[in-house]
């Protein structure tokens, strides 16, 4: 991938920079393991979510999602206990396609998912790598089924997602985490977050949709237990995981990404992921109400001000 490197900027070392994790801490054997975070939530308890719309004034719609870390206690080591998720989404459009573009009878949807260079333990470059492109395709699949594209012929909309902080694949203290190419369990969480935040941004932009799409993740751990919204740092032995984009009122799935040794019956895993998505749906509904309230209030104030203006000039 030598052709893919960015030559216009002075790049950081390709291996990434991170706080040192010592192979054998000065303390005795087993000390490192004692730092390992454990899941304190119940198996079907989700992490808290923060979601807000209208954060980018220049975009036609935007949203910001944050899933903070569960552990807040100060740690005696440099290894962060768990990772958190911070995603910003902005929407440009719908706007007319450039004259040079071929005719399209439907809305042309472009999704761009980009990790910020500092989003994960290993630095991401400025050019999108294959994992980011893959996430973009997944997100496009999730949104394409929801947006009623035939109402905007000859126009395009861009969904731009920036991941400011992404879920890690494993706990930093694990020796496996050194490889750089991880198991990819964190990506499923990132995708679910992207779906939810993109859905909120689309809602903010006022693009016609059949329903709100919400993301959710479920996983099966080594002992066969099903957990909702897994934080990969808290689970050492994830066997299979599944992310869905779920339409709650239609009971339909627009995006399904399942991977791992799930056996012959993935139904329970998919069902778990839809349950997790229901949690995001309730957050999305709250945000939708809030969004409408602020918009109507702003519209009222705006009209009042206009009247005043008229009085002033008159």
């Amino acid at each position, binding site marked *: 991938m030598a052709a893919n490197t960015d030559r216009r900027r002075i790049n950081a070392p390709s291996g990434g920079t991170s706080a040192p994790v010592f192979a054998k801490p000065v303390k005795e054997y087993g000390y490192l393991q004692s730092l390992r975070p454990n899941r304190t939530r119940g198996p079907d308890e989700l992490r808290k979510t923060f979601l807000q719309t209208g954060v980018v004034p220049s975009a036609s719609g935007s949203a910001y999602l944050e899933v903070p870390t569960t552990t807040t206690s100060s740690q005696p080591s440099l290894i962060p206990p768990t990772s958190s998720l911070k995603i910003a989404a902005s929407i440009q459009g719908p706007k007319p396609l450039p004259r040079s573009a*071929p005719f399209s009878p439907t809305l042309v949807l472009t999704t761009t998912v980009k990790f910020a260079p500092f989003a994960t333990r290993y630095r991401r470059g400025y050019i999108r790598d294959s994992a980011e492109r893959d996430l973009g395709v997944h997100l*496009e699949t999730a949104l394409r089924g929801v947006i009623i*594209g*035939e109402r905007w012929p000859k126009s395009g909309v861009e969904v731009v997602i920036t991941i400011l902080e992404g879920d890690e694949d494993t706990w930093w203290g694990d020796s496996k985490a050194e490889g750089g190419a991880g198991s990819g369990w964190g990506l499923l969480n990132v995708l679910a977050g992207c779906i939810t935040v993109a859905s909120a941004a689309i809602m903010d932009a006022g693009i016609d949709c059949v329903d709100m799409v919400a993301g959710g993740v479920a996983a099966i751990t080594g002992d066969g237990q099903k957990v909702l919204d897994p934080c990969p740092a808290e689970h050492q032995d994830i066997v299979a995981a599944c992310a869905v984009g779920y339409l709650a009122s239609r009971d*339909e799935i627009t*995006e399904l990404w399942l991977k*791992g040794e799930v056996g012959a019956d993935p139904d329970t895993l998919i069902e778990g992921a839809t349950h997790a998505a229901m949690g995001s749906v309730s957050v999305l509904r709250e945000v939708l109400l809030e969004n409408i309230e602020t918009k109507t209030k702003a519209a009222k104030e705006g009209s009042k001000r206009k009247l005043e203006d008229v009085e002033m000039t008159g």
Partner: protein
Amino acid sequence: MAPPQPQQVNLSPAELSFLRSTLCQAPPVRFDHTKGPKDFRSMRAEYDVLPGANGSARVALEDGTEALVGVKAEVETSQWRPSPDARGSALAPDAEMRDAADDEDAKGKGQNSWIEMSVEIPGFRDDDSLPVFLASMLTESLLASGGLKDRLYINTRFHWKLYIDILLLSPPLSYPLALLSMTTHLALLTSRLPALKSEKDEDPLFDDDWDAAVFLYPKSKASASDDKPPVIVLAMGVGPNIIFDPCMEELAVADSVLAIACANATASSTRARIVSVRTIDPPSHLTPPGVPNSMNSATGGTVPASSAEALTQRELLANSGVWTPPRGGMKRGLISQVVKMVVEEGGVAEEVISALQAIELG
């Protein structure tokens, strides 16, 4: 030059509507009417076509799409990583026993980065979304079971690096995922690595006799329960029906498309195992909607006065047979039905895997 449009279908709304209504019948009438919903397109396949590769295969479908896969392996030095777990347990009293372990040593030591896949599709750049999506789906299904990457482990200092290069020789007429996966399956099934002569942590020395080479996917006499590479099956939902291996015209009217990667049954389970599932955005979302006679002044209708009225009239057309691009996703019941049809005994997965096995034997 405009970027290539993937799978652009040039069908009119009337044609799309006709196709959809035939596919929704019970039983469905497919585009190729001689086929049932579970029938695959016929194909020609051969393996060991590239003398310079460790394993290779070529598959051509009847509609002219053709794929070539070469598998090459290289010995690479492993990066030494300080592992606190290993060192800690070496200090522990059972260190001797750990040294004595032999074959089980490789278990869980494989790394995902030891397999590199590239997909080359004519007309697409290697960073376009379609090749990237195909490569990640294929890689993900290969890595899902740790068996393959563990077999690439030689010793603590060396490992095999597997390069899987996939070439689509024809333009992507239909969605090429299933074809590429079947070709990759056949190439991996027949790829061999030179037999190792050195022991333990010595510098690896290999047998130069190619006849002594070992299969990447080892074969035993009772061949039914061997570990085999996964294979990806494409299924589409249209109305109440499920259709496997859809061709390009059928995909143009699909409600939803599912790619299911499944591995063969092992000794522990009698049914095939799912290793990965992904939804695929069907090209039907990009088809032009039809204009009904009632809204067309050329056919005696009246053109709606405002755009709001046009929208209302369009929404009332839902079941009138005028083509509108499908909306929404896939019902959960339909997904589990598809999965069941794939994994059940004598199901689609078993059929495809045994058919590919037969190519190698025959």
